[in-house]
Structures are given as C-alpha cells and as structure tokens.
C-alpha cells in the first residue's frame, strides 16, 4: 500500500477516532438527542440508557466493580483537577499533604502548585533513571498529614509503567487515597482498579480512539467510599460530583472506544510493541549516541522515546514534519520554553532533554510507516550532526563539559 503523508506518530498527544466510534456517536446528535436527566419522556430515557451503557463499557475496561463509580468529565485535565482538588477540599480536616511524583503530566503538577498556594503541602517524589517510582522513597514521603497519593499509571513522554499494585498496597497500608492518572494507560495496557487498589482514576477518550472533549474519573464507592468536593456546581448530575448536561454523543463514543480497546488490547499491544521494537532497533543500530529514555521493558507498547546527542529536538522535527508528525522534549516545542522536565527528572542532562524525540504508534500505524519514519529520522539526525558544532567537538575528542559555555 502506498504511504499516505503526513504519517501520524504522535498518538500520546491524541489519537484519531476509530470509525466504529464515530458511527456509534452519530445518531446521538440528531435522532437520539435527549437529555439524560429528562426523566419523563422517551428521549431522556434513551439518552440515559446510552450513557449508562457507556459507563458500563468504561467500568469494564478499568476493572471497576460498579459502573456508578464512573463520573464523566470534559477530559483528563478536568478529571485530574476534580480528583486532586476534590480530595484536598473534602479531606482538609484530616490533613493537608499530598504525595505525587516529579514526572506527572502538567495538569497534575499545576493543580498541585495551586494547592500549595492554598496552604497544602506537596511532596514531588523523584523517580529512578528508568522512570519508576522507588517505593521506599514514596513510603518515606508519607506523613501523618498525607491525604492523597497521586501517581501516573504510565508516563506520557517515556511510557514507563509504574507498579501500581505495589503503590496501591502501600496506600492501603497507610489508609491514604490513591489517585492514578491513567490517561495514557487505559485501553492500552491492562488496568484494574480493584486489583491495583486504586481509589480514583483519571482517563480520557481522545487517547483511546474516541472523541475529544470527554473523559472520566473513577471514584471508588466501596472499601473505602471516597468522597470528593465538586469543581462545578449545578444540577447535581453525576452524583453531585460533576454538574452539567452530559455530552451524550461524546460519552457514547467514549464508551464504544473503551469497548473496542478492551476487545483488541492484547493483540494490538503485541503488534505495536513489535513495530516499536523494529523502529527502535533500526534507529539505535544506525545512529551512535542515541539513548533510549525510560524503562526498556516496563513501558507502553506504542511508546518510543530517544535522545539524539548533539542535535536539538525541534530541528529534527522540522526535518521530518512535512511527512510525519512526532513530538520532542525540546524547549522550543514546549509552551513553557523549558526542556522536558520528565527527561530531566530521569537524570538526563538538559542537552539530552532538548534532544529527545517521542515516537508514539497507534492502531492504524503500519510497518511501512515505521520503516519510512525510521529511515528519515536517521537521515535527518545524520544531516544535523554534520551541522552540529557539538558533534564536531566531540569527534575531536573535546569533552563538552570542559568548555566554559557562555550561556545567555
């Protein structure tokens, strides 16, 4: 099959909706447009049934005991806000301390920063060079004021998958609520809130081939019953935790997307891991001083993150962006103009953080696409190295650290 350009390999930023998802959604815009809270006519009942079905589909893919534990939100960011702020407010009497990690996504870190300004204390536990949280370090961070542990299930940049069951056991042992930011994990790898002892879990539709604009927060109802204060007050929808008219078509799409992921996850994971490994081998065997970021095994099957020493990430993307879509931890591609704090937290130098490229594969990625992107990446990196003063110095045997750089 001929390649179609541009090739999308940025599926950890978003995914294309699966056509089956779109198909499921369409009737809910026009014919089945009812408000699920309309209790007295068939339009409302029909919408409510559809929403409940989606709740079940999502509950199933995260291993929730009861579909009622799934609360719909506008997406991952809102779910994380609701979980963290909701717990912080609800359990203020009990304590004011939150434990999280240094590699959480921006939404989590920014919520934590806001909470800190409101009198809460947050400990950002460092991670090991492979991105895993060290359980002892996590344990030591807990105090008698700790009300919440919030850890991302799988990392958005390097794909490292945490040992959530072990973290869950620790949280249970200490009687602390555990929130998992599973936006990158749900639908991609097995997630089970019961088995892992997760009390709150954030996920989003657009990363699992569903529509943008809808997400969910799992809120445990039993053992323990977790309570959260709402961010949005109103009609008391979603058991009072999230008021607002439910976007039924989006929810239907989210449910269908979760259902499909549940069906194909195992097979898809194997296929993508194989393609990812092919890409990784191709790149690492052709380019010297290219470093894999994250954990070599415990990582998402569709994730590959590599730092190319001596070349800057945005310039690599620029060489590829006519034909492919990737992302970089380079400062130049971030809104904050700082290089990736995730790569930095793994202990890599800032230079290597600037040089990181994330390849994230998806359901529709083909072997031809992988081969093309791999070959072009190799070409571009080699070309840029010929232009790089750092590569030249390194080849001359100069230790770059020995140079007194005149930073701006």
């Amino acid at each position: 099959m001929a390649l179609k350009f541009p090739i999308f390999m940025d599926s950890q930023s978003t995914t294309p909706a699966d056509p089956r998802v779109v198909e499921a959604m369409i009737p809910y815009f026009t014919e089945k447009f009812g408000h699920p809270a309309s209790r007295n006519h068939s339009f409302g009942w029909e919408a409510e049934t559809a929403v409940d079905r989606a709740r079940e589909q999502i509950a199933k893919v995260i291993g929730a005991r009861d579909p009622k534990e799934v609360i719909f939100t506008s997406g991952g960011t809102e779910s994380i806000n609701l979980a963290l702020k909701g717990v912080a407010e609800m359990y203020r009497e009990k304590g004011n301390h939150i434990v999280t990690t240094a590699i959480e996504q921006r939404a989590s870190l920014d919520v934590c920063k806001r909470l800190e300004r409101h009198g809460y204390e947050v400990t950002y536990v460092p991670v090991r060079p492979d991105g895993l949280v060290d359980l002892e370090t996590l344990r030591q961070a807990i105090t008698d004021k700790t009300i919440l542990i919030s850890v991302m299930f799988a990392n958005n940049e390097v794909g490292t998958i945490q040992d959530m069951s072990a973290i869950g056991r620790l949280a249970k042992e200490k009687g602390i609520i555990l929130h998992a930011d599973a936006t990158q994990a749900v639908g991609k790898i097995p997630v089970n809130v019961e088995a892992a002892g997760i009390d709150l879990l954030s996920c989003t539709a657009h990363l699992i081939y569903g529509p943008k604009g809808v997400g969910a927060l799992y809120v445990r109802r039993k053992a323990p019953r977790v309570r959260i204060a709402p961010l949005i007050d109103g009609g008391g929808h979603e058991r009072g935790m999230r008021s607002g008219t439910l976007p039924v078509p989006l929810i239907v799409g989210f449910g269908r997307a979760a259902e499909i992921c549940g069906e194909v996850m195992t097979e898809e994971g194997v296929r993508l891991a194989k393609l990812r490994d092919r890409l990784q081998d191709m790149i690492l065997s052709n380019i010297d001083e290219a470093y894999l970021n994250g954990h070599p095994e415990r990582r998402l099957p569709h994730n590959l993150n590599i730092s190319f020493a001596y070349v800057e990430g945005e310039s690599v993307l620029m060489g590829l962006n006519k034909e492919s879509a990737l992302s970089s931890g380079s400062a130049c591609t971030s809104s904050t103009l700082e290089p990736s704090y995730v790569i930095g937290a793994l202990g890599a130098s800032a230079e290597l953080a600037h040089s990181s490229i994330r390849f994230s594969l998806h359901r529709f990625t083909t072997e031809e696409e992988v081969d093309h992107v791999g070959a072009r990446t190799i070409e571009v990196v080699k070309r840029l190295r010929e232009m790089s003063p750092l590569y030249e110095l390194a080849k001359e045997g100069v230790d770059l650290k020995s140079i007194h750089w005149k930073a701006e």
Partner: protein
Amino acid sequence: MAYSEKVVDHYNNPRNVGSFTKGTPGVGTGLVGAPECGDVMKLQIKVNLDTGMIEDAKFKTFGCGSAIASSSLATEWLKGKTVDEAAKIKNTDIVNELKLPPVKIHCSVLAEDAIKAALADYREKHAPADARASSE
C-alpha cells in the same frame, strides 16, 4: 506555529555549513550559547588580510530551525563586508529578514552574539593586520 518560508529555506539549504581548517590565516571564531540551553552556534569568518574584507564565513549550529536559519543567514551577510561593517549587523535585521516570531528572537540574538564573538576573536588574533587594514 508554521515556519516562515525563509527559515524553511535556510534549514533545508543551509549556506556555508562547515569549519575552516585549523590554523588558516585570517580566521576568527565565535562559539556562543550552551548545550543545556538548547542552542550553540559556532560562527567563523575568514578575512582577507590584504583587503580587510570578510571573504568567507562558515557556521555550525546546534539548535532549532530558527537558530540554524539565523546563523546561516549571518554567514551570507558577513561575506563581502569589512570587519567594521560586519559589526553593524543587528539581531533585529535577522528577525525582520527571517520573520522570526517573538519566541524565536533569542535565536537572532545568539547569531548577533556569534558574529561579535567571531569578530572579537579575529581582532585579538590579528590586531596588527586589522589595524593596517582599517587605517584611514
């Protein structure tokens, strides 16, 4: 954010990439920026010691597309100028020529720094020749 056509052109067809052989007479080298900041530029000029004109310039840049384009453009502009004329190149000229957005202005600043550093290095190494060339 899309890149301007000129940035894309310099990125795809960088002018004057390379380095002068060590010990070439009339060469001044500037190395500015820092790897941890994501930008390093090496810019070299080669001055004709008889005429005082910059007859060649080369660069190597570690940085984003705009940094590469800024330094590539700088080498183009340097050629044919005297050392004194070269010192008048301003980062704002580069911003205007390449239509750099505000977040990329630092690339042009770095290119101006690289020019200044190369000129200073040349002057330091060739003070007598430079004095001769620019004596009026």
